């Protein structure tokens, strides 16, 4: 691999510089192509699945089913957005499923107690943010690895809401609130628009802001990020706080969508599907690398599999077999990518 720049000016003729520029451009192009290749791979898998499902049952691509498919994917995608930020930052959040349920149940209990829904929603999001900050605090101050800290918070949060509700769903919300989860605009559910807005916000956050740059630095090399003046602990607290708040918000949207908040909603199923969707979307399990577009495709793949298997009447238990295979494959690609990039240097 030829070096993209010269350290010795005296010997660097314009000829060599030109060659270096060309080789660097070529490599950048190769990088982009490789990143795009992974995303294109997911698109290809989705297309193949769509064809299979469409042949299996022509209802699959009917407008009604496509909208249902998109809607079923939105809540996963909304949780996947901050999860992408967490993973890029070198962390992992297994508490998302329980924080999702906690957000829904908290807002629901507050609304049932007569508190106006906007305040109930804000408080629900705040509770989620606090749980997220708790995740980060456990790993930052008590040195509990994020995997264990977030797993602990998962069990504690889901335990608390199960005890508080006796395991029963909470319902009886004002219509203005449930309309927000069930309404349509131009034939498309509100939820899909929420997901779009949140997706754009997180894309900007990750690609254009200091928080996103810092996440890549912290996830890419935590010690280097810290040595260069990034306050890594504060960064973790913010990122996990955002993740908790958004997971809770998704749970509240779910409560509005179904007119009830189930303490068993989300759960480990949501946690694993979200993490898997993000990783399938090309976000590295080891931090530093990842994109919102990839996570959107990962979530779409999930929604397609879930919906398609149901539409062609395949036992939904098969779903896990597909997902497991795709996950392992996606991580193998990630490893190969990292290997090629970084093992070549010595």
């Amino acid at each position, binding site marked *: 691999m030829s*070096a993209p720049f010269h350290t*010795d000016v005296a010997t660097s003729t314009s000829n060599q510089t030109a060659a270096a520029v060309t080789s660097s451009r070529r490599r950048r192009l190769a990088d982009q192509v490789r990143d795009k290749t992974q995303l294109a791979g997911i698109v290809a898998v989705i297309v193949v699945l769509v064809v299979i499902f469409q042949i299996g049952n022509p209802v699959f691509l009917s407008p009604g089913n496509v909208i249902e498919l998109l809607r079923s994917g939105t809540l996963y995608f909304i949780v996947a957005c901050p999860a992408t930020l967490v993973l890029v930052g070198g962390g992992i959040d297994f508490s998302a499923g329980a924080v999702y349920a906690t957000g829904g149940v908290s807002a629901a209990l507050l609304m049932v107690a007569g508190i106006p829904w906007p305040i109930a929603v804000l408080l629900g999001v705040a509770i989620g943010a606090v749980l997220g900050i708790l995740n980060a605090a456990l790993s930052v101050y008590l040195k509990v690895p994020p995997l264990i800290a977030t797993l602990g918070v998962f069990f504690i949060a889901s335990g608390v809401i199960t005890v508080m509700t006796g395991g029963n769903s909470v319902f009886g919300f004002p219509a203005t609130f449930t309309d927000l989860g069930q309404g349509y605009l131009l034939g498309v559910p509100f939820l899909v628009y929420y997901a779009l807005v949140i997706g754009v916000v997180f894309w900007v956050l990750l690609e254009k802001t200091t928080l996103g740059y810092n996440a*890549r630095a912290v996830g890419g090399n935590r010690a280097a990020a810290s040595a260069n003046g990034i306050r890594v602990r504060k960064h973790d607290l913010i990122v996990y706080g955002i993740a908790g708040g958004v997971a809770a918000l998704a749970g509240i949207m779910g409560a509005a969508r179904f007119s009830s908040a189930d303490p068993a909603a989300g759960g480990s199923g949501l946690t694993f599907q979200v993490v898997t969707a993000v990783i399938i979307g090309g976000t590295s399990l080891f931090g530093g690398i990842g994109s919102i577009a990839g996570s959107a495709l990962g979530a779409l793949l999930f929604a397609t599999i879930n919906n398609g298997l149901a539409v062609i009447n395949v036992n939904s238990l098969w779903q896990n077999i597909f997902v497991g295979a795709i996950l392992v494959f996606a991580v193998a690609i990630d490893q190969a990518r990292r290997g090629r990039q970084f093992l070549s240097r010595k």
Partner: protein
Amino acid sequence: METADRLVPALELRGISKKFGRVTALEGVDLTARSGEILAIVGDNGAGKSTLIKAISGIYRPDDGEILVDGQSSTFTSPADARAAGIATVFQDLALVECLDVSTNMFIGQLPKKGWFVDRKRMDAESRRFLDELKVTVADVHTQIGMLSGGQRQIIAIARAVRAGARTVLLDEPTAALGVRETKHAADIITALREAGNAVIVVSHDIEFVFAFADRIQVMRLGRVAGVRKTAETTREEIISLITGTKQEATA
């Protein structure tokens, strides 16, 4: 340089001590770094050089002692504090993020902003300019650090320290992984830093490098200062005997 700058050291340590459990890494360490001067810190493995650098750069907090920047007593609770005080450190492991590009690495921790967003254009243009000033020919500031050689990384790391507007630059083993030509280039940059009026502190194992470029040499041994010499007034033999402890000096 004005005389006032000479009188007040850019960086001064007084009686710095650091313990890790029952292990004493530093004990009563003094250090004086002046503008326009290269101070070399030498010593055997375990002499406390790395701990000393980490104390100055805010990674470790000394248990005892005082750090003065331009004569002002300062406390660093994080690397960000040290940077804010004008002290930049180029670590042995370089502290670059491999999966990020050259210009992002140049600005980590101090990203330029335009409104709410990172000013990518300015970042790229300034990176270019700084690398040009250091006579580093970079084809593309978007190249990932992971693609560069050890020497190229070293130079990027030094360039970053300069860019950060540091007045005191610490370099931890700047030539450890470099070839002959890269070492020469690193030395040129270090000399340029001195000429620009920075206080430069270099931790190095490379005695030849130290004698060629340092103005003063501070020898560390077992967590204490074994001696400080002007390069012009000492010999390799004396420095080596201070390092190994065959020549003892009464420390205050």
